[in-house]
């Protein structure tokens, strides 16, 4: 699915380089469920952003579905990402001015999906997530768990091959968190590749593989034996 080779990313502070990612290599196969763990500032989010093409890196190679992300143009990259990747955030990042329905619909608008098709797709996903009754509410009227549900629905609406989740349960209570993780597990079983960053050992256990990061480097890797 994707392959990172010797990725470096740094910022300069006071003339010295501070490495956010330091010689990081990672290969992810289609259908995997990967958990990235590590203390704050270890580079979890940075890694996710790099994989999600939201952020650049300074050195190294990145292949996504055989495409060399490090060389292709901005526009192609945007397309590649738009077609294949969905994002789920810790802080949900719903658009406050839009209703649940409109929030979920937005990625389809940017993909120029026809109106009738949009309606069908959004209706499906609302149904599947059991939030049909909430479709006309605004984010501020929902609980955190519900908001994150909408966030995931929105990430899934374009049928991405890869979901990147940055501490998706960080703002939720344990019960809500568990529900979300069950949902991810379900999605993974349907064939969606998932990479999540998390602090929680419990949540990490849902993954088929756990990667530990420290200071931008991988320190150990634990694969679940299947």
């Amino acid at each position, binding site marked *: 699915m994707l392959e990172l080779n010797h990725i470096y990313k740094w910022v300069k502070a006071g003339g010295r380089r501070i490495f956010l990612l330091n010689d990081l290599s990672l290969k992810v196969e289609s259908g995997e469920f990967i958990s990235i763990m590590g203390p704050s500032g270890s580079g979890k989010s940075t890694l996710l952003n790099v994989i999600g093409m939201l952020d650049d890196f300074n050195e190294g190679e990145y292949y996504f579905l055989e495409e060399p992300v490090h060389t292709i143009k901005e526009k192609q990259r945007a397309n590649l990402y738009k077609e294949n990747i969905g994002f789920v955030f810790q802080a949900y990042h719903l658009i*406050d001015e839009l209703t649940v329905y409109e929030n979920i619909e937005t990625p389809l608008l940017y993909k120029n999906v026809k109106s009738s098709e949009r309606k069908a797709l959004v209706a499906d996903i609302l149904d599947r997530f059991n939030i049909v009754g909430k479709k006309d509410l605004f984010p501020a009227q929902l609980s955190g768990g519900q908001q994150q549900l909408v966030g995931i629905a929105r990430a899934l609406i374009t049928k991405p091959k890869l979901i990147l989740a940055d501490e998706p349960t960080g703002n939720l209570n344990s019960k809500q968190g568990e529900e979300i993780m069950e949902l991810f597990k379900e999605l993974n079983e349907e064939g969606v590749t998932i990479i999540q960053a998390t602090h929680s050992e419990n949540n990490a256990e849902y993954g088929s593989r756990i990667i530990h990061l420290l200071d931008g480097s991988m320190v150990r890797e634990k694969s679940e034996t299947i």
Partner: protein
Amino acid sequence: MIKNYFKIAWRSILKNTGIFSLNIAGLAIGIASCLLITLFVVDELSYDRFNENADEIVRVVFKAKVNGEEMKEAVVMAPVAEALKSEFPEVVDATRLTNHYNPEFSFKNTSYRDSRFAYVDPNFFEIFTLPVVKGNINDPLKEPNSIVITEQEAKKYFGDEDPIGKILILEDENQQFKVTAVIEEVPKNSHFHFDIFASTEGYLPAQNSSWMNSEFYTYLLLKEGTSSENIEAKLPSIVEKYMGPQMKGEMGMTFSEFKKNNEIGLFLQPLTDIHLKSDFIASTQLEQGGDIKYIYIFSAVALFMLLIACINFTNLATAAASKRAKEVGIRKVLGSSKNQLIYQFLAESFIATTLAMLIAIVLFSLALPVFNDLAEKELPLNYLLQPNILLMLVCLIIIIGFLAGGYPAFFLSSFKPIAALKNKFSSSGESKNIRSGLVVFQFVISAGLILATLIVNQQMEYIQNKNLGYEKDQMLVLRETYLLGNKQNAFKNKIIRDPRVEHVTQSAFVPAGPSDNSMSGVFLQQEFKRRMFVYNVDEQYLPTMGMDLVAGRNFSKEYGSDSTNVIINERAAEILDFKEDPLGKSFIRDTHDGGQKLTVIGVVKDFHFKSLHQNIDPLIMLNNPYGGIIVRAKTANMSDLIKDLNATWISFNVNEPFSYSILDDSYNQTYRTEQKMGSILSIFAFLTIFVACLGLFGLVTYTAEQRFKEIGIRKVLGSSIPQIVALLSKDFLKLVLISFLIAFPICFYLMNKWLQEFAYRIEVGWQVFVMAALITFVIAFLTIAYKSIKAATANPVDSLRTE
């Protein structure tokens, strides 16, 4: 997708009602002001355009410089029209008009003295587009004593009767005129407005062959595509050819002798320039026109208003960017391209602009009557409904939409998604600089306009309080009392006995407002010196007008008739070289029957008998009273006196209504254009600073929001409220100060140019600058302080808890 853009735009507008209202209010005021001024300018520029041949019509005007006296007259000599028509094949036709003001006309038992009357050549209505609605369409003025009148005039004299063939009597000359045609009202935007046009057929002055006497407004219709410069270039030889032979007899010298030290010539003025570009002697102007300078000034003000409003919009939108940053980030993560975001922000801008435009149109409708009052116009509301104006409005929405929404659109859409999501976006240095630059620009305009307003007002005040050399307060001018005929003296004596009256004089000459006008050539030892103004007065004139003698004596009955004696002003004494001891010296005044020898018995202190735009000209006073009377009252309560005078007038059994003018008012009338400009300018100066402050208010609001946490931390650390206020205000006030540095020199330069138009003017002192700076600064500070004090007094715990 488009529907979606508008939906989002509308929602985000609803969410930020406060700032949005500021934005819309500013923009609406800007657009409304711009509309008003545009309308005014369009109207001013439309003068005489209604004539189908407007571009082919020119007016022949006269300019000369004789012994240092500059003469610019809009009238020329009677034979000029015929001469130019025969000399130049390019001149298709020529027509003349001569102004006879408001004589009394009567029909049966009704008579009026308010019909504006002119003699015109029979072909007048072929050159000017004044359509005949009734009567002889083709050649209404062919016959002598035929007149063409306007519809309103026909109604006034004849009611519903058919006016054609009716006879009007010109009372003063007991002459009968037959109405041959009725025309529509002369359009408002014409440089002349007459109600009755009589034929010059059989009118003797029109047959006058003299090239030494100007009284005809002369218009030429040129062949299409003719350059008037080519004709103008040949005019000097024409003048020499026709005027030359007559000069010897009139001036006592040949044309070439005359030309050695003097200039004289005819020039062509395009019809469409008459209203805005005429600087002829006021008495030779048909009507007081506009001034192209004010058109420029007002256009600039309109543009500035619009710019300031757009800048507000842009500034507030970019400042709001931090609030929208998260949304932009999410949208980018969700796959929005940069263009799609640009469209979205432009859509918001367009909604706002359209809304502002609608509000502006409402504001415009409300303000139009007030503006009309101020500008002395009658601009109709439905002016807006013209297709080209509507088109302009739509273009305006598009331009402003792009101008105001463009920068924020491109700026916001270029955010890096991750930075935006984490709200790491802080107003970057660059955008802050641009915003600062725009604020400076706004305040340059505001401060500049305030300074300009102050200077204009100061000059107006100077004009008000200037020592004119005569008294203008408590003076009553009764120009019509000559109508009493031989009863005038009785009337005068009755007035003198009134205890509220200090002085009464008989004269038709008034230093301000309507006055008789007379000039004579003055010769000294056979040598032509200069044309001088002649005042025909009585011995009460100087005391009544409060004029001072610097030497000699006033006219006086004790010295007989004083009919060959003269009082001259200081300027005349200077020109005649009578500086040392003018008394007893004599000179010759040119009259119709040769010359008249006059001996100087007094020198009157120079007084301003022309507007302060001009220097004081030489003037001589003769003891030869005629015309109406001028009353100087002891009391400031003029209305009672006027009421009683009116009663006296009625008791004299005249058929004329009593009419009067107050000299102070007439004086102020002279500076109406300037006063008009002054008041319009102050209103727009106020509006610009108001709109600029709206913007400033919005910016401070954002800054306070952005620094909410910082303010909290500082307060916890022990910062006082004034320190916080200073922290928030400092940067903005600095910008206002910078704007002074730019605005004041530019404004000073321009206002000095304006002041140059006055021969008598104020010196621009440093006080005005301080004043303008203070006004602007205080207004700006109050705006900023209001918001920053609110931010500074907020409980610090609230601000820290939000994180």
